[in-house]
């Protein structure tokens, strides 16, 4: 495998390489969008989108963030596509990624179907409402709110602390009634870890709100799912991450229909995005042990901060 023979230097150099790939790609896209003459070859944009999504897919894995979370802020800020189509494509990117990973997660026990179903039911119902509201809002309002959400994600990435094995001394009545417990074999220690959850009702209400955001912005909601499952419900971190993916597959299945029915899914935007992100994520998974996750995470925080501010300023008319 050629990739195994690649020599990648110090963490700062590696981060710089990725930054060189991502930031200029976004900046060039923006500049080109403004300057592109009417006769510009149509295929340059899907090709640029594929390349940008490929890079996003690579860095999403070591950064511990879903590719869908990166997609809407970056493509929405730096590509010439209207936000309606970017959100439609963003949902499909998140859906295809979640569906591809879901079966493996479920077989290993890192994703729990029992824990998924009650949470996904509320989140997917509310995501339909979020999608309908999102498509009815003015572009400026969507940009402004998207900027606020992205900056919130940045804040969460900076301040959130995660617990690998939260202590759940006693499950609540609803959790017991629904049998929200399970097990998985921890690859690091080889132990079988049994888990259960508590605070089920606050957890359900939280997922109701997460669904609205997922539908409204077409943004992958893993950034919100994982802390809610881990810190609120008390699922082990690996189960939270795995179950988040399965929840996403159901939530995005519902919301994507709204965009599809409204005509807001353009295959020329959606398909290169999905393929680029999936191929990039496969490479990112292989490079996982060669890239410094902390450096990549800081890089992603920087890019999202820039994209979030750009979206906020664009929405408020301060940076057209």
């Amino acid at each position, binding site marked *: 495998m050629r990739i195994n023979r690649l020599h990648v230097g110090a963490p700062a150099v590696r981060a710089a390489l990725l930054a060189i790939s991502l930031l200029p790609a976004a900046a060039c896209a923006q500049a080109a969008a403004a300057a592109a003459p*009417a006769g*510009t070859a*149509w*295929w340059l*944009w*899907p090709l640029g989108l594929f390349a940008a999504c490929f890079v996003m897919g690579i860095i999403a894995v070591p950064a511990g963030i879903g590719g869908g979370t990166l997609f809407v802020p970056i493509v929405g800020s730096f590509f*010439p*596509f*209207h936000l*309606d*189509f970017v959100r439609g494509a963003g949902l*499909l990117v998140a859906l*295809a990624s979640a*569906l*591809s990973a*879901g*079966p*493996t997660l*479920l*077989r*290993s*026990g890192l994703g*729990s*179907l*029992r824990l998924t*179903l009650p949470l996904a*039911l509320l989140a*997917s119902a509310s995501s*339909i409402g979020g*999608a*309908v509201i999102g*498509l009815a809002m003015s572009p400026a309002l969507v940009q402004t709110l998207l900027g606020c959400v992205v900056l919130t994600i940045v804040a969460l990435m900076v301040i959130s602390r995660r617990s690998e094995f939260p202590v759940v001394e006693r499950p609540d009545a609803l959790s017991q009634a*629904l049998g929200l417990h399970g*097990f998985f074999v921890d690859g690091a220690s080889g*132990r*079988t*870890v*049994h888990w259960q959850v508590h605070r089920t009702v606050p957890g359900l209400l939280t997922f109701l709100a997460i669904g609205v955001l997922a539908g409204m912005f077409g943004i992958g909601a893993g950034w919100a799912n994982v802390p809610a499952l881990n810190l609120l419900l008390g699922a082990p971190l690996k189960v939270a991450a795995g179950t988040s993916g399965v929840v996403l*597959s*159901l939530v995005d*299945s*519902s*919301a*994507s*229909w*709204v965009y*599809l*029915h*409204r*005509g*807001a*899914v*353009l*295959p*020329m*935007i*959606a*398909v290169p995005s*999905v*393929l680029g992100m999936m191929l990039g994520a496969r490479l990112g998974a292989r490079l996982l042990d060669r890239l410094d996750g902390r450096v990549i995470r800081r890089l992603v925080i920087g890019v999202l901060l820039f994209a979030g501010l750009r979206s906020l300023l664009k929405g408020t008319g301060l940076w057209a």
Partner: protein
Amino acid sequence: MANPEHTSQSQPQLRYALLVEWGTRIGLVVLALSFIAYASGLVPAHVPLERLPQLWSRSVGDYVAATGTPTGWAWLQLLHRSDMLGLAGIAILSVSSVVGLLALVPMYAALRDRSFVVLCLLQAMVVLLAASGLLSGGH
């Protein structure tokens, strides 16, 4: 905390994983093949590729009005157009979880797990309701 009697996840979970896996594979293959036909010009598109750069920066309402792109399920009548065929792949991806959920209903019923029979049916109904277009105004 080792527990040797647990070697595999529950049967409903494994069945769901299998069905979603196959639905996803089929959806992605349809998506990729239709895109090749679309981008290569092998099959004519409803909206010519050359027009896209002038259209994709407009809102979806303007785009639909300018191109006569069908909303709701009307795209099924244009499946001979390569861009509309791509929507079929997306639709397959979007319903693959429903097939898995409905297959679980008899399994949970046999286990007398009534709450999960109801949850599976409700979740499938939510996705199908979204797919119907009744809630999104695209019917």
